């Protein structure tokens, strides 16, 4: 942003210099006041110059200025960082009041594109910009949650509500199959980096190759450009923000049975299959009547409301030579699950020093520290499955010790998760330091050099401790595991940039070199035999283990871009990048990434000038991006040395060689239209066709070769989509304004060139990659309900001829006979959001909704919680309305007879459910103190707001939130929901003070 602003200002000054100074003229004073158009508050520190001269002034604290002009033809130029420039001809006026439009709302605004900045009208690519205004409603600690439903074509999935967790972001569907990453994040012009959401000035989402081509091999998942705040005004500005509230676990439709519900349900276990009668005497013998009234709510015990706090303090200012921004954030969230939480402190210092008009340097430092307490999966598992007939506390309110010898404990595994949580600790700490050094040199008026460099260092430590007092495998011994990770790296980007205008022709561009490398080290120590009350490795007395390894990766790149425009109406951009990486075998290390984009700003044509069309633009782009992010050494055949046999070194097969492994590349075509009308309606439409070739896939091998899979380049995936954003100001009066934003993103994908189908199986759940198939398509035996005659489960069995055509469909109750078939995909058909912003005087009410349609979720945990009697000592989930259990011939039931339910809970489409949802994402009511009142209190502004987040989800999915991971990690299948940390419903009060 900074470079961009300066460039435009310089351009203005340059243009001014070109103008001839008119002859002498009696000087007259022009006065006025400069305000922010959005809120009519005065803007101090605005630069007011007479175009073509160095004469000028700066507005005072109340936004007032006075300047001496020499002629009625003089142009006054009003410029202010973060706001669009305005030029006004003096004419006969002696008072000129003017309002500036902040860039976030300004259609003419400057958009930070990473290596360069452009005027919005100049851009020929699909780009979405969110200013801090649009982001500030949310009070979560990470930026991904802020994006949900706000940018067309961006899918945000909060699959996990654990403290400190981040949501997954996918732009325009899934381009890479096995290693799909989220978008590349670029902070302040340099790839990678860390930031706190409070420090964000603007966030730009680059969606097509016209924009992302510049990032070459790192850009297959799109690019998010974060620009942090800078000093804006001569007068120091201070801001304090405090958000405090609480959150509760959002269990969705997942409700476990109460004691008496379970008591009733278990009578079914005692039904005689042949007679159909329940043997009630045996039941009472086995399940004493007193259980009926025992009702301990485990979920309520393990999940409690948690406190959320976020405090932010910043100061910023600038002088001619120097500008600075200092921001500090402290974030503290209690987890909803027992004994979990997360804290983070972030400090950022951004400074710019101008040695001269030609030379400036930026020093940006971001330091972030965090710590938190995590949880053990099994503790969460038992929180749902423990029986309501068991109470974890003794008469004194102390957690009960339960083990395999306990005779009074009903739940299956004889373990009390409350006791385990109280006698264990899973915490972590982290630190991350980024230092950016940016050097800018203006060589001539049209040529400049910039060197952007970042050094980063991060470390993380996890501590896993189980006391010898805890029941279970570590009882009497205890367990300690400490793992340290350290990473460091650097990146340097050195660019020559030019910007040249002659007559109606403008040329600009850049070329340069980028090098980056990272190094990673890990060290682990583990031991048992701990004395009671101690929890460091030093006190461990037995079963020591150590581990540790180092990794590194490097990349070098050549970057170039060329821009041309004619009359600021016809635009052409081309970029070319060459990347060389350590991830591939020597012959395949170098790849080329060209892109080209063109656009026509029709609204700049004479025939539209002065019409109701504020802006009309047609864009077309084509380019190539790539993906190499599969980890180092994947092309080598390897034997691992990380084990031992009989205390001697041992080498075991780790991976098959893949000597021809190469880049995955996406060929992206995008067509877009931007239209704004009546200063009220703005519409963006983008159509794209992205073909990813040479997909990097872990191709499943027959297990009999001794390896599950190997990396290979196989086939293509085509993503086609449509994105629409419609923003309208529906009502606008002096006191009242109502605006709405609609976003819609539709994405279809198709695989081709795969050859023989590839199956991917995790936990026995399979998905298929095949020609003309969809991504993340589940292949499961198809559940056909319950046989009304026998009460047995039914699946579909297909018989096929030699050509694979189906010759017969029948039903079977033998699971082994059931035919796995393609059922549904885990990816949505379309998704988007709705935002409504109401403003009345100083009140505003913002509402955000997000929706996703057509994705299917595999409810894996339901296998346990709805288990047809296979696990009589696990609690059950409350049934969906309309569910029934088969008890006698003729019953049309949803659930099989408990006495005839062999393998009924094996993986099948029985557990695959529609995951479509409509979510009330965020509602914020905000009151801003009138400026004069604030000023009388000695403040520049005061606002208070109440926010509710993730308020309700409308869905038919019968489990926790249907937002589940779409990230195919090696241990997780996209679209599969296991027991997981539930999402959060959050209510927060925020106070913002500016002074």
């Amino acid at each position: 942003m900074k470079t961009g602003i300066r460039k435009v200002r310089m351009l203005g000054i340059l243009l001014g210099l070109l103008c001839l100074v008119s002859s002498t003229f009696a000087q007259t004073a022009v006065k006025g006041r400069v305000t922010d158009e959005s809120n009519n508050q005065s803007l101090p520190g605005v630069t007011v110059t007479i175009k073509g001269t160095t004469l000028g002034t700066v507005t005072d604290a109340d936004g007032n200025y006075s300047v001496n002009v020499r002629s009625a033809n003089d142009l006054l130029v009003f410029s202010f960082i973060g706001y669009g420039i305005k030029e006004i001809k003096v004419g006969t006026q002696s008072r000129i009041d003017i309002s500036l439009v902040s860039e976030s709302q300004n259609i003419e605004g400057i958009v930070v594109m990473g290596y360069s900045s452009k005027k919005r009208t100049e851009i020929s690519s699909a780009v979405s910009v969110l200013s801090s205004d649009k982001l500030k409603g949310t009070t979560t600690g990470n930026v991904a949650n802020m994006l949900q439903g706000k940018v067309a074509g961006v899918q945000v999935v909060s699959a996990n509500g654990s403290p400190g967790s981040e949501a997954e972001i996918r732009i325009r569907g899934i381009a890479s199959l096995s290693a799909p990453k989220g978008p590349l994040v670029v902070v302040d012009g340099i790839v990678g980096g860390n930031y706190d959401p409070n420090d964000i000035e603007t966030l730009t989402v680059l969606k097509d190759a016209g924009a992302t081509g510049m990032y070459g091999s790192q850009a297959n998942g799109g690019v998010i450009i974060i620009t942090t705040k800078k000093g804006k005004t001569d007068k120091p500005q201070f801001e304090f923000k405090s958000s405090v509230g609480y959150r509760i676990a959002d269990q969705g439709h997942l409700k476990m049975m109460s004691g008496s519900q379970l008591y009733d349900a278990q009578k079914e276990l005692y039904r005689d299959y042949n007679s159909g009668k329940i043997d009630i005497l045996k039941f009472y013998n086995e399940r004493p009547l007193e259980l009926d009234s025992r009702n301990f709510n485990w979920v309520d015990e393990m999940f409690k409301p948690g406190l959320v706090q976020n405090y932010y303090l910043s100061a910023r200012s600038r002088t001619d030579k120097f500008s600075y921004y200092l921001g500090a954030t402290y974030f503290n969230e209690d987890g909803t699950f027992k004994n979990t939480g997360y804290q983070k402190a972030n400090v950022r210092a951004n400074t710019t020093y101008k040695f001269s008009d030609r030379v400036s340097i930026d020093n940006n430092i971001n330091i972030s520290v965090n710590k938190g307490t995590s949880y053990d999966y099994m503790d969460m598992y038992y929180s749902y499955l423990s029986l309501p007939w068991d109470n974890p506390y003794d008469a004194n309110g102390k957690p009960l010790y339960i083990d395999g010898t306990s005779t009074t404990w009903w739940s299956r595994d004889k373990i009390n998760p409350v006791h385990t949580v109280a006698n264990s600790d899973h915490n972590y700490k982290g630190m991350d330091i980024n230092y950016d050094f940016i050097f800018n040199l203006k060589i001539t008026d049209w040529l400049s050099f910039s060197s952007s460099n970042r050094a980063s260092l991060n470390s993380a430590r996890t501590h896993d401790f189980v006391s010898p007092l805890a029941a279970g495998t570590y009882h009497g011994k205890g367990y300690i595991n400490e793992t340290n990770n350290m990473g460091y790296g650097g990146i340097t980007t050195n660019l020559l940039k030019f910007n040249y205008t002659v007559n109606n022709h403008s040329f600009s561009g850049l070329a340069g070199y980028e090098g980056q490398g990272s190094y990673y080290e890990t060290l682990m120590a583990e031991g048992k035999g701990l004395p009671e009350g101690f929890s460091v490795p030093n006190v461990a007395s037995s079963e020591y283990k150590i581990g540790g390894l180092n990794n590194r990766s490097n990349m070098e790149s050549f970057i170039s871009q060329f821009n041309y425009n004619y009359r600021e109406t016809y635009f052409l951009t081309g970029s070319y990048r060459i990347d060389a990486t350590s991830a591939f075998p020597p012959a395949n290390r170098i790849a080329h990434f060209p892109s080209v984009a063109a656009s026509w700003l029709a609204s700049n044509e004479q025939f539209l000038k002065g019409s109701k069309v504020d802006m009309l633009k047609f864009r077309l782009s084509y380019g190539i991006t790539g993906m190499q992010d599969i980890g180092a050494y994947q092309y080598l055949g390897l034997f691992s040395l990380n084990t031992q046999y009989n205390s001697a070194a041992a080498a075991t097969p780790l991976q098959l060689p893949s000597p021809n492994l190469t880049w995955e590349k996406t060929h992206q075509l995008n067509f877009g239209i931007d239209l704004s009308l009546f200063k009220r309606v703005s519409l963006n439409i983008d159509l794209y066709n992205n073909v990813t070739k040479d997909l990097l896939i872990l191709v499943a091998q027959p297990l009999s070769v001794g390896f599950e899979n190997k990396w290979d380049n196989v086939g293509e995936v085509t993503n086609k989509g449509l994105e629409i954003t419609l923003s309208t100001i529906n009502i606008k009066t002096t006191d009242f304004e109502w605006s709405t934003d609609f976003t819609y993103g539709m994405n279809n994908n198709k695989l081709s060139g795969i050859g023989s189908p590839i199956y991917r199986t995790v936990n026995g759940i399979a998905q298929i990659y095949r020609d003309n198939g969809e991504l993340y398509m589940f292949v499961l035996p198809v559940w056909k309900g319950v046989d009304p005659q026998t009460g047995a489960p039914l699946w579909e069995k297909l018989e096929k001829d030699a050509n694979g055509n189906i010759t017969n469909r029948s039903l079977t109750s033998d699971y082994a006979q059931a035919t796995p078939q393609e059922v549904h995909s885990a990816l949505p058909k379309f998704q988007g959001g709705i935002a409504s912003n109401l403003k009345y005087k100083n009140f505003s009410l913002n509402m955000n909704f997000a929706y996703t349609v057509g994705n299917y979720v595999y409810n894996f945990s339901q296998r346990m919680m709805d288990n047809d009697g296979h696990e009589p000592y696990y609690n059950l989930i409350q049934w969906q309305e309309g569910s029934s259990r088969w008890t006698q011939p003729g019953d049309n039931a949803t659930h099989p007879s408990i006495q005839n339910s062999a393998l009924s809970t094996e993986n099948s489409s029985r557990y695959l459910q529609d995951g479509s949802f409509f979510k009330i994402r965020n509602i914020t009511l905000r009151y801003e103190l009138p400026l004069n009142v604030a000023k009388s209190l000695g403040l520049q502004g005061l606002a208070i707001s109440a926010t509710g987040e993730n308020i309700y989800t409308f869905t038919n999915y019968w489990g926790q939130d249907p937002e589940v991971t779409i990230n195919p990690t090696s241990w997780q299948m996209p679209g599969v929901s296991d027991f997981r940390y539930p999402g959060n419903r959050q209510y927060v009060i925020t106070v913002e003070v500016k002074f």
Partner: protein
Amino acid sequence: MKNKIIALIFVIGTLFAVSSCELDVAPTDAISTASLLNTSDGLLNVTNGSYALLKDNISFGGFVDQNNNYLRQYFQMSDFASDDIVCAQVTEDPLFYSFTLTHSPDQANSRFFWYISYKIISSTNTVLELTTNTTNDDAATKQLVGENYFLRAFSHFNLLRFYAKPYSIDPNAPGIILRESTSESASKARSSVKDCYNFVISDLKKAASLMGTSRGPQYASKAAAWALLSRVYLYMEDNTSTVAYADSVIGSGNYQLATADAFKSYFPNAATSPETIFLVAFTTSDNKGKFGSIASMIYSDGNSGWGEEFASQSLRNLMAEHTEDVRWNYIDTLSDGNGGVVTKNGIETFYIKKFSGQGGDPNLSSPVMLRLAEMYLNRAEANAKAGNDKAALDDVDLIRTNRGLENALYSGELPAGSTALDVVLKERRLELAFEGHRALDVYRNKRIMNRSYWGYHLPGLVATDIDLTKTPSGYDKMLIDYTNPRIIYYIPVDEILANPLCKQND
């Protein structure tokens, strides 16, 4: 000023000259397959690796499941399908399907076993290929190459028992996929049972001829190859060869049966006993604890394990004739303190302790894969089948003498109504209980498995149905004939999907 700027540019230029990146990077905890044998200890390390795979929990399906290791699945898939162990709890764990015989192609334990077996085979193939051209023929190298032949045979042979019909039932039935080299096509059909046995025999003979310098019972040896050959020939019902290879081991003089007294502590200390021919060494750092040890399903001290499967009533009834039998030492009754036995879901708790007690740990043992007692029993069975009853009974008596039954010997007399084979198989059951033999011993001899006792292998059983004073009746699957297709497992689904040439079991 100008000079300063020039200096600055110079500094920056230096910076990125220095950063100019190295694009050749190598892992720090792995070695490339091509250079595997380039170090002096390479062959040793990779050979040790194959043994490590018998005990390690390695990543499968993307993560390391604490309960997935070769031996745990080996013993569970063998003995949970027998009449020696009873299931006291209905469970979602796929180990349950061995009890109920409701197998499925996607059961995780079987999928892992198949995978890890072939990983061992792949490792041995890599070694055998890399050493083909080696000029090193010193004894140490030959020993290690021989061990690889042994491990390749051992892995193939154990796969055969789970996924192919017993040789004695149908030698022409589909066997398993023979993996003879790493370069052959990924898609490959199953060879016949007969061809598989011949392959295993050929490897074992090579192994026996190459190995000469035993590295201890933790590693394969010439005697281990002979011992396994004896077992292979027994399964093939080649009585002469069974006896010959059993004789080779017995006659080597390197092994002797544990005495009755020593046997009481044999299993926790198998590595130091002269009875052990081959075991898989578990050190304290290999303790798999509650989630992964072999012991954890069949024994618990209250915390150490799940303790959900017990010694069956069928086995205990057989042992009840002789309370002085020291083999009772490996069955641990959980007493309720009032003279009764604690029940779990109606089933009496008789824990099994053959996989516990190493270093005093309830979850630690070094499981014995081959021991001398089996050689006597192999020889006895072959002799019984060959009509040499006297020789068979003498071997049985030798075992009984060393198990505290010196007062209950057959002394060459067959009990009324019993054949010599009956006697041998009964002794084999008592001696080798829980060691992975029982189910196959029943089926390969074309006998019927009788599981008419209370346990959750009975379909639809609920605790209140159990009346320990009676024998259960009317339940499915109490008698399992050797013709039942579920005496073996399905080929794992992953193989069927990715290898179109591989035919599924019925």
